[in-house]
Structure formats: C-alpha cells, structure tokens
C-alpha cells in the first residue's frame, strides 16, 4: 500500500512539474474565452462599421417600393435595363435589381445583377424583403387588414413542470438540460481518452527505457500499474478543477470587460427583426424565456450532478485506464499499440454516439436505460442523463456495475501487464495476450 502511494506521488509529480502541464493548464482555459471574445468582437465591429450595401432598383412594375434599412440602401433608377446596367457597371455599388412587370400571384422574373458572387445572406435578406412587400400587396388586394392578421398569429411556448415523486413541482427547461447533458457527456469522453492514452504512453516509456525491470524487483507489477493509473487520475482531476475555475473566471471577466453580452443580444434582435417582421414581438417575448432559463439553472441539483459526474469521471477512467495500461505493457512502441487501441475505444465511441442518438433526444427510453447501465458505455451515457433526472435505483445499479466493471478490467489488465512489461521484441497479437492472461505467476 505504501509503495502504491510512492508510485502515485512520483507519477503525479512527474507530470505536474512539467512545463507542458503548466502551459496546457493555464493556456487552454485562456483559449476558450479568447476565441469567444475575438469572435464576438469581430461580429460587433462588423455590424458597427459596416457600410450600407447599395442596390440599384429598376422597377418596371411600379409596385415594389423597398425602404432603406440599417444595412441596405436602395437607389431607384429609371430608363431601360441596358442603360441601368451601364450605370451600375460604372458605380461601386453592390447590385442591380431588375423588377419586370409581374402578377402578384406569380412574382417571377426578378433578377439581381452583381459583379461578384453575392453571399447567401444578402440574397436571403433581399428575397425576404421582396417577399414581405408582395405579402403586403396581397393583403391589400384581398382587403385584409394587417392588424387583424397580426392578431391572428399566435405563439405558444409550453411551460414544462416536472411533478416529482414527492409531488414537488420543478420547472424545467429541456434545452438547458440537453446542453448540460451534451457538455458533460463529451467531457467524460475526452477525459477518458486523453488520460487513458497518458497511461499507455507512460507504460510504454517505462518499458522501452528498461527501467521497469528494476522497478518490478522492488514492487509488484500490480502495485506499479495501480499507482500509475491513480497518479494520472489525480493529475486529470487537478487539471480539470483548475480549468473549470479558470474558464469560469476568465469568461465572466472578458465578457463583462468588453460589455459584449449586451451588444451581442442587440445584434441578435436586429437579425430577428430583419428576417421576420413578426419577430419583433418575439424578441420582446424572449426576455421571459431567458429569465426562465436562468431560473431553471437554480433548479438543477448542482451538488448531485457534480458528485455523480466526478464518480463517472473516475469510474470510466479507471475502467478504460486499466485496459490502456495492458496495451502499453504488451507493445514496444506507440505504433504497435494502434492495433489494440480501436477495440478498446470502440465501446467508448459507441457510448458517445448513443449520447446523441438516444440519450439526449429521449433520456428515458429503453435504449438510454441500457446504455447508461452497461459499464463500458455508462460513463458517457449516464452523465448525459443526469440533468434530466434518473430514478435512484437505476443510478445505483449503474454505479455498482461500473465499480464491478473496473475491478474486472483491472484484474484482466493486471494479468496481461505483469507478463507484458518483461517481454521485449515479441510479436504480439490477441492470441499472445490470451496466453499471457492464462499464464500462471
């Protein structure tokens, strides 16, 4: 036990004292807010500094009268098309829109002449504006009052309230839960892969540098393997904790420093208005859902999720980590390890896809149940479900099976490991691994 602790300390310190650890731990949380801030900054700058797009309009029908907006300026031109084209050619403007005579029921033949390929967004903007104009003209033609039509339009958003077993009402926001499940599931997936690989590389390094023979003359192979796995787990937990804290601090700091959160919202409202005139009242209504999302964050049992996340975090890591250690012990180089990596990672990848295909769309389906119970997929699948609420018996069953799962994989791995670390230059395949596994002491 004392020796496992020594190895644990050594493995932990070796990694934590490295410059690359320090850099990764500090830089990665900086990168996220930096990206968000830069993108938001560019977006806002573009909106602010954007010059109005000038469009020449040659309206032969005389029906369409496009109004200038924040982003578009329309210049009405007269004369025939050829003339208008020449004028447009000599100008610096964006486009020439030619509107021929058309019937309201069949608005065809409207053409946009441009000098370069226009962006989808501009085409869509212009189409939207034309559609709105024709829409209004039609209303007038059928003698329908605009106000009446507006009052006909109804928008319903369901208020979702969970009745828990105790009868307590919990207001929930599915979108919010989806997002949370998504992030947690992916985090587990990445964590297990990244740190599992670290175990494998560590074992390969010990094996190729031949230190391992000295070490196993002092400690048992199982102690060495376990000390290494636990040491790297501690590195992962420390790094993750620092990341969470740093990301939270820096994100909040940068956003409030630039005051970007407000401007971003304004820009979004503007876009909504542009696309759909009816959206203006939608935008007003949005205040309400935002408040609701914020409110539902309070309703999420944070302590429950954090505890269980940490559990699956460690459980999943230990389950796969042992297998990665076994692979590392069997091979002489990273290249050789590749043939064994895929079969190990496959169940993890399946869990990852199940997260998107079954768990997030329907957390309470039968498929979701099985994926979150089976130890190999449960770390990713169950954390995806956590936020939606999981029956206690399912949670306990899943966790007990996960503990059993990693004891099982550690047992298998240890049997391969003790033989593998002393073998050099042997060609390893699954048959050989099985032979090692069966080999006695």
């Amino acid at each position: 036990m004392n020796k496992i602790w020594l190895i644990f300390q050594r493995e932990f310190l070796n990694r934590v004292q490295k410059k690359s650890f320090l850099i990764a731990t500090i830089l990665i949380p900086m990168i996220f807010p930096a990206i968000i801030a830069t993108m938001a900054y560019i977006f806002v700058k573009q909106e602010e500094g954007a010059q109005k797009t000038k469009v020449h309009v040659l309206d032969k029908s005389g029906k369409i009268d496009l109004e200038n907006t924040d982003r578009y300026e329309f210049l009405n031109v007269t004369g025939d098309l050829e003339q208008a084209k020449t004028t447009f050619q000599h100008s610096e403007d964006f486009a020439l829109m030619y509107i021929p005579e058309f019937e309201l029921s069949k608005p065809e033949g409207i053409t946009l002449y441009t000098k370069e390929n226009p962006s989808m967004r501009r085409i869509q903007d212009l189409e939207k504006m034309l559609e709105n104009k024709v829409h209004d003209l039609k209303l007038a033609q059928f003698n329908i009052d605009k106000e009446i039509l507006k009052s006909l339009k109804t928008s319903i958003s369901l208020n979702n309230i969970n009745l828990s077993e105790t009868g307590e009402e919990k207001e929930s926001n599915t979108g919010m839960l989806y997002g949370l499940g998504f992030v947690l599931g992916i985090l587990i997936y990445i964590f297990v892969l990244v740190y599992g690989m670290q175990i494998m590389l560590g074992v390969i390094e010990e094996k190729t540098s031949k230190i391992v023979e000295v070490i196993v003359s002092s400690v048992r192979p199982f102690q060495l393997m376990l000390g290494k796995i636990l040491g790297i787990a501690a590195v992962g937990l420390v790094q993750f904790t620092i990341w969470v804290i740093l990301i939270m601090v820096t994100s909040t700091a940068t956003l409030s420093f630039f005051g970007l959160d407000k401007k971003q919202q304004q820009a979004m409202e503007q876009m909504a208005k542009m696309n759909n005139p009816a959206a203006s009242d939608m935008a007003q209504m949005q205040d309400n859902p935002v408040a609701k999302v914020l409110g539902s964050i309070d309703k999420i049992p944070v302590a429950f999720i954090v505890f269980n996340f940490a559990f699956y975090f460690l459980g999943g890591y230990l389950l796969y980590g042992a297998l990665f250690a076994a692979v590392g012990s069997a091979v002489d180089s990273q290249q050789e390890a590749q043939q064994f990596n895929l079969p190990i990672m496959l169940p993890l990848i399946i869990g990852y896809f199940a997260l998107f295909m079954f768990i997030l769309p329907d957390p309470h389906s039968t498929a979701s149940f099985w994926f979150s119970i089976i130890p190999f997929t449960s770390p990713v699948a169950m954390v995806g479900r956590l936020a939606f609420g999981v029956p206690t018996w399912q949670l306990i069953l899943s966790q007990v099976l996960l503990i059993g799962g990693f004891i099982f994989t550690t047992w298998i791995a240890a049997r391969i490991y003790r033989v593998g670390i002393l073998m050099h230059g042997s060609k390893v395949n699954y048959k050989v691994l099985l032979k090692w596994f069966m080999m006695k002491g």
Partner: protein
Amino acid sequence: MEALIAKGVTKRYTNHTALDNVDLTIPEKTIYGLLGPNGAGKTTLIRIINQIINADSGDITIFGERLHQKHIGTIGYLPEERGLYKKLKVGEQLIYLAQLKGLSRADAIQKSKQWIKKFEITEWWNKKVEDLSKGMAQKVQFISTIMHEPRLIILDEPFSGFDPVNAQLITDEILQLKEKGCTIIFSTHRMETVEDLCDHIALIDKSKKILEGSKKKVKDTYRSNTFLVDHKGVFNSTSEKYSILSQKSLEDDYYQTIIKITGSATSNQLIRDLTDLTEVHGFVEKIPTMSEIFIALVKGEVETGRNSIN
C-alpha cells in the same frame, strides 16, 4: 551461513523449460559467478530470486529464511538491460528508487547524497538522466543498485558498457562491498571477470546446472596433469610415465613441449627426469582457464546430446 540456497527450482513456459530442477548453494560473503551461454536460463533464475516471477516448483532460502516479499530490500539488482527514467533528475531518481526498496525518505536522501559524493558526481544531482552519457547513467544505476545496502547483490553483465576506468571503479567497489560482508552474484559470460573476481561459480546450460563449486575446486577437477616445458635442444623419447602432447620450436634452439603425466608420477619427478634429457628453461603447470572449462563443458553437452540421438 549460506546467502542463498535454491532447491529444485523449475520454471516451465508453454513451449520450453527455462529452468529444470536447479539447485544452487551460494555461500555468504563470496563473489559467485553464474555462468552460462545466452538463453541458458540465467535471467529466469535471477528474476525468480528477485521475485519478479514465481517458480513453478522448488524452494529458495535467503540468509536462512524462505524467500518472501520482505526480502526485496535485502537484494540489490542490476539488470543486464539498463534503464532509468529519462526525464527524472539524478537526485530524485536515486531517492525514488531507494524509497521503493523500503528506505524512508530521509534515509534515501542521505544515502544518495553520500554515494554521489563517493563517486564524485555531485554536480549531476540536478541533471536529467537523458542529458547524461551512457557511462554516466550506468554509474547512477550502479549506485541505485547498492545504495539501500543490500546483503545480496545481483549483477547481470555489470561491465557491459563501461569504459576501462569506470569498470575498474566498479570492480574496486564490488571488492569493497565483499569486504563489508555482502554476497555478490555475477551473471556473465565474460570469463575474464570470473577468472579475476569470483570465488565460486556455477555453470548453467540448457536450463540445467551442470557444474558448481569454488573456483579452485572446479579448476582442480579439470586439471589434467599437463605441463608446459621450455627447453633448449630437442628430445623425443620419455619414459612411459609421460606422453608428449605437442612440441614446437620457439627461437634459435629453444622449444616448448607440452607433457602429460600419464602414470602416478609427480611434477617433481617429471622435472628430475627432464633435466636428464634437456636443458630446462621454464616449467609451468597448464591449468585450464575458466573459458576453456566453459567451452569444453558446453560443447561436451552438445556432443552428448548428439550421441543420445544416434
């Protein structure tokens, strides 16, 4: 007391037998040479003594006690394939390895500083192993083998990779350790080492021990009563008590003759008889070197093997 007694140690793998019923008796405070060609089973035996692997059957007693987990600190092991943590500093490395052998952290620090001073490599303390030359790393590894003051030291091909100066340094160190009461097992196929250092030897070939005993005894066993005589002038006939194995001319009128005593005569008698025949300039017994014994035995094994097939 014996440092180590092995009885009937056997280790079988699926396709071959690595050790077949091997008995060894290693006296305390000796340098014991474990000889044998590559693949004979030396490394397997050493791994079993180090408890890296378990024997299928047989008993090992170390300083009168049955081999047990607690003896890890009693043994110091330098494997043939040397290796250290490349990214770790020399000091930390020594402390860590000593702690794994069961030393407390304080003891480990004190001992490693002491040894590094003794080997005059104090300035390496904060250097990473990857920055050291191969020879330097070997010194560090040697320190790590002995710094926890093991009573039994197992060295597998200890001189491979050392330059003559360092090899001498290590040799001196080994002799000092023996003086202090350590028992040293040398596993090697380099016979000069055995000739110079070992008190006892065992020869393992094809998973079996084929010879064991003190160096002197072994050599006596393989003495063939053969003598090298340098003399002036040719002589051809001797009495039937002796037979001439070969004779070659050296320079001028000098010759060297190899004579074997076939009867019960002593060497003194041979000299007496020779002086009647020729002018003797040199007389020495032709004692087989370990190398000759080794080759003879290993080859002999091959031949008996062939015979049994025929």
